[in-house]
C-alpha cells in the first residue's frame, strides 16, 4: 500500500469510529459469492424449529418478508408457498427443508433460498421479570449452484425490566400481540426488529437486491468498483456525483473526496468508510 492512502484510511477510520462507535472494523464480510450470483428473488423455506416454542417458525415467517423486500428482493409469498408445499406432500418444515434445489428451480423459479433454523425463542419467566428471546440462523443459498451466498445469526433480547424504556421498548411493545387475551407475546415485535437490524447491518448485512432504488436505478455495484466487501454504494452515489464516481476507476483519493462531500451525513460517511476499508484490505490481500 502507498503511504498516503494508509494515512487517509487511518484518519478516516479514527474519525468514523469517533462518530459512530458502531462500525465493525474486523475482517469485512466476504460478499463475492453473493455478488457473483446476484439473485433477484428469495424463497424463504418455513424454518426448522430447534426451540420449544411451537409457533416460532411461523411467527418468524411473518417477520422476514418485509426486511428482505425492502432490501430490494422479490420475496415469494410465504403463506402461499407454505400451503403449496403442504399440498405437495411436505407436511412440515423438516420435509420442506429437504427439497432438492432443482425441484425449487423447476416449480418455483427462485434464484436463492433462505434456510432458517430457530435456535431459541420465547419468553422466559423469572421471579419478578421476564425476558423475551429470539435467536435464529439464516443461510442464503444459490438455487442453481448450491453455493452459500450469505449467512447471519439473528439475536434479539428484550427484558421486561426495560419494557417501555426508550424507543426499542416502545416498538417491541407496540408490535406485541395479545394471545388468548391474557398473555402478551413480544416475540413478533422483537423478531421483526431483529431481522431488520441484522439484514441491514452495516458490516455483515445483506447486499441490496434489484428493487432497491433510492434514485430510480438498479443499484448493484457498477463494474469498475470491484472489491471484496463493498456495499451500499447506491446510498453514496445517491447523494453525490454518481456518474463521476462510476466513470472513474477506483482510487482512494476519490473516496476521501466523497467522504468530505458527505460531511454532516454520518450514515453516508459510515458507508463510505466501510467501502474504503474493505477495498484497502482487498488490495493488501492481492499484493501478498
Amino acid at each position: 500500500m502507498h503511504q498516503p492512502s494508509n494515512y487517509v484510511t487511518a484518519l478516516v477510520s479514527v474519525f468514523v469510529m469517533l462518530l459512530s462507535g458502531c462500525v465493525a472494523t474486523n475482517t469485512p464480510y466476504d460478499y463475492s459469492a453473493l455478488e457473483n450470483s446476484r439473485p433477484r428473488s428469495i424463497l424463504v423455506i418455513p424454518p426448522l424449529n430447534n426451540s420449544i416454542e411451537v409457533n416460532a417458525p411461523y411467527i418468524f415467517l411473518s417477520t422476514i418478508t418485509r426486511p428482505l423486500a425492502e432490501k430490494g428482493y422479490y420475496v415469494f409469498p410465504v403463506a402461499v408457498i407454505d400451503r403449496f408445499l403442504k399440498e405437495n406432500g411436505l407436511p412440515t418444515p423438516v420435509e420442506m427443508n429437504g427439497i432438492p434445489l432443482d425441484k425449487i428451480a423447476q416449480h418455483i423459479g427462485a434464484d436463492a433460498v433462505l434456510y432458517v433454523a430457530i435456535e431459541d425463542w420465547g419468553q422466559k419467566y423469572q421471579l419478578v421479570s421476564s425476558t423475551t428471546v429470539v435467536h435464529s440462523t439464516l443461510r442464503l443459498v444459490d438455487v442453481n449452484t448450491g453455493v452459500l451466498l450469505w449467512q447471519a445469526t439473528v439475536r434479539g433480547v428484550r427484558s421486561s425490566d426495560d419494557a417501555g424504556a426508550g424507543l426499542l421498548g416502545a416498538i417491541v411493545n407496540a408490535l406485541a400481540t395479545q394471545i388468548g387475551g391474557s398473555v402478551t407475546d413480544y416475540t413478533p415485535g422483537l423478531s421483526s426488529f431483529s431481522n431488520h437490524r441484522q439484514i441491514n447491518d452495516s458490516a455483515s448485512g445483506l447486499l441490496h437486491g434489484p428493487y432497491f432504488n433510492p434514485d430510480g436505478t438498479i443499484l448493484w455495484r457498477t463494474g469498475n468498483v470491484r472489491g471484496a466487501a463493498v456495499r451500499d454504494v447506491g446510498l453514496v452515489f445517491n447523494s453525490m456525483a454518481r456518474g463521476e464516481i462510476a466513470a472513474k476507476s477506483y482510487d482512494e483519493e476519490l473516496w476521501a473526496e466523497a467522504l468530505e462531500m458527505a460531511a454532516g451525513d454520518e450514515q453516508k460517511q459510515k458507508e463510505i468508510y466501510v467501502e474504503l476499508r474493505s477495498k484497502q484490505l482487498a488490495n493488501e490481500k492481492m499484493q501478498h
Partner: protein
Amino acid sequence: MKFVPVLRPTFLAFCIVAGGCVTAPQEHYYWGNYEALLLTMYVEPGTADPFTQIEKLSVDIQQAENTGKPVPPGLYAHLGMMYALNGDASQAEAAFYKERELFPESEVFIDGMMARAFARGEKQNAPAQ
C-alpha cells in the same frame, strides 16, 4: 379484530432507532395489514378467515394507491390464495396474474400453479392462456 396496531404506525420510530447504527432508508412498499395477517393466520387460526383477509388486503391495495407506494411482493399472490380458498376462481386467477405482472420473478411459480389448478379442473371458466 385483534391485530390492531401492528407495524404500520411504529415503523417510522423503528427507522429512527435503527438509524443509529443501521441503514434504514424510508420504506419502498406500503405494507398495511399483510404481515399482521400472516402472523394471525398461524398464531390464531380462525381469526383471519379468507373473507376477512380479502377485505383487509383490498383496503391495503387501495391505501397503497392513495399513498403512491407500490404493493409489496407477495401480497397479490396471498390475496389470490384467499380468493381461491373462498371458492372464487376468477378473482383468484386475476390476483395471481397481477402478482406476476408486478413481479416477473414469480412467473414460474404462478404459471405452474395456474396450470395445475387448470389440470385439476378447479377452474370452470378459465380463459385459454
